[in-house]
């Protein structure tokens, strides 16, 4: 599991690979007899909010006590918070797409019993950091292919729903249809754009790309709010053009890095088309 592996990692993210590597490097106390469980990423993976209840209790204690040395390969006895275990706590949580926050395997926080505000704050801070990474100008930005390792889908979800709500609010007739069209266009559009890159032979991780396209909507959200507050057509056009350019500029490095350079335009044109159509919706709805 090297960081330089360019094989697309489906349904996983680089942060999981980092954590697994850390785990392997920390070593298991019971020596060579320990075998990695057959499905190590299952309780840790934040990607799909599968209800992993049978496996919640079965996480891999990083330093398995000698008493339960062989249990890392099987399910631990289903005690909710087994007091006999070292203060390793529970990693997996069945509360949805939450992660550990990259704290490694030292003394991981107990995400099941922490205050709700901590959970929300962690997710919000991740959304903000992803936003800064994707949308704001950064001349020292590292290789765009590795950016957004900690992708998540909350941020894109908020932005899409917010844009739909703003458009629906500013429409004077057929409000629900406007919301439906905006939401469907953006959600289906993100999926189709990702499929387009995959079909053109590009290398991109499906959910990472969805996350990215969602974060690149942030400038258009800002533009929609401004257009809702001020109703002048000329101002709207200027605002939409500026935010459109900003969104496309934000999405450009990620999409173009994913495909063969001879097909860059083929991969970028649909992105541009989607943002132009959303921009047009913003201008036209009054």
């Amino acid at each position, binding site marked *: 599991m090297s960081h330089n592996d360019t094989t697309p990692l489906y349904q996983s993210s680089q942060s999981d690979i980092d954590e697994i590597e850390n785990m392997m490097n920390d070593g298991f106390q019971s020596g060579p007899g320990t075998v990695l469980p057959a499905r190590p990423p299952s309780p840790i993976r934040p990607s799909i909010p599968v209800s992993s209840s049978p496996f919640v209790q079965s996480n891999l204690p990083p330093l398995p006590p000698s008493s339960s040395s062989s249990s890392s390969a099987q399910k631990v006895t289903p005690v909710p918070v087994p007091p006999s275990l070292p203060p390793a706590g529970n990693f997996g949580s069945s509360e949805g797409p939450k992660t550990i926050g990259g704290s490694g395997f030292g003394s991981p926080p107990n995400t099941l019993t922490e205050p709700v505000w901590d959970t929300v704050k962690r997710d919000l801070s991740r959304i903000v950091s992803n936003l800064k990474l994707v949308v704001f100008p950064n001349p020292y930005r590292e290789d765009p292919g590795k950016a957004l390792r900690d992708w998540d889908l909350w941020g894109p979800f908020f932005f899409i729903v917010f844009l739909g709500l703003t458009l629906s609010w500013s429409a004077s007739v*057929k409000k629900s249809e406007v919301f439906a069209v905006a939401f469907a266009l953006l959600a289906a559009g993100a999926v189709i754009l990702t499929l387009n890159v995959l*079909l053109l032979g590009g290398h991109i991780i499906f959910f990472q790309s969805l996350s990215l396209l969602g974060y690149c909507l942030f400038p258009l959200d800002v533009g929609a709010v401004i257009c809702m507050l001020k109703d002048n057509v000329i101002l709207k056009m200027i605002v939409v053009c500026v935010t459109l350019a900003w969104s496309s500029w934000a999405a450009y490095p990620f999409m173009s890095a994913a495909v063969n350079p001879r097909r860059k335009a083929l991969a970028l044109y649909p992105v541009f088309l989607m943002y132009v159509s959303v921009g047009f919706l913003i201008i*036209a709805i009054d």
Partner: protein
Amino acid sequence: MQIFPPNQGNNARGYQTLETPIEGPEQQPPNNWKGFFNVYSYTQYFDVDTDVVLNRLMSSLYPTSGDFFNKIDANPDLYGLVWICTTLVFVFASLGNCATYLVKKRTDSNARWDFDVNYINLAASIIYGYAIIVPLAFYFSLRYMGSKADLLRFWCLWGYSLFIFVPASLPLLIPVEFLRWVIILLAGSASSCFVALNLRSYLETNNDLTVVMAAAFGLQMILSIFIKVWFFP
């Protein structure tokens, strides 16, 4: 020859060898539908570069050359079909709304104009329906009549034939009724000639099939008139 449904990555560059792996005379032929839900088995239909796509788009603007099938023979693509149709949906929905706006403002400058979101639904149904169903219908009817037909190439042809409506939509904004009719008839006939002449050169002279050509021409003209009537009244 590329086949549809796709086989699971067995085709190098889309060519299926004629010898299927036959283990024994009683063996069933390999299941062609195994790769149906795998995205990677469809990459063979999108194996084009930017310059290839641009070349095909430009050649769709010249209706009389008749060599489109030679051009796409080695490598027909569905990229043109998908994204030209999507562009058309967006163009018709947006410019159609603009056109009604201009007409309303011209006749009565105080009239209230509302953005009609249903244009998007309508445009999507018409364009996608036409571009998918008409080549399918031609494929089946030509196969029924015994002549050669290839579904993928038909989809490619019809997809690229719709490209001319994209630049033609811009002058359609001018709110002069006569001018709109002239423009749409020109664009429609160019597109229809493109389809009909290329079909003729593909089918290679068989007098029974002038009906097919005429049908293709007619359907494309009907589409263009429909566009005019619904989106740019």
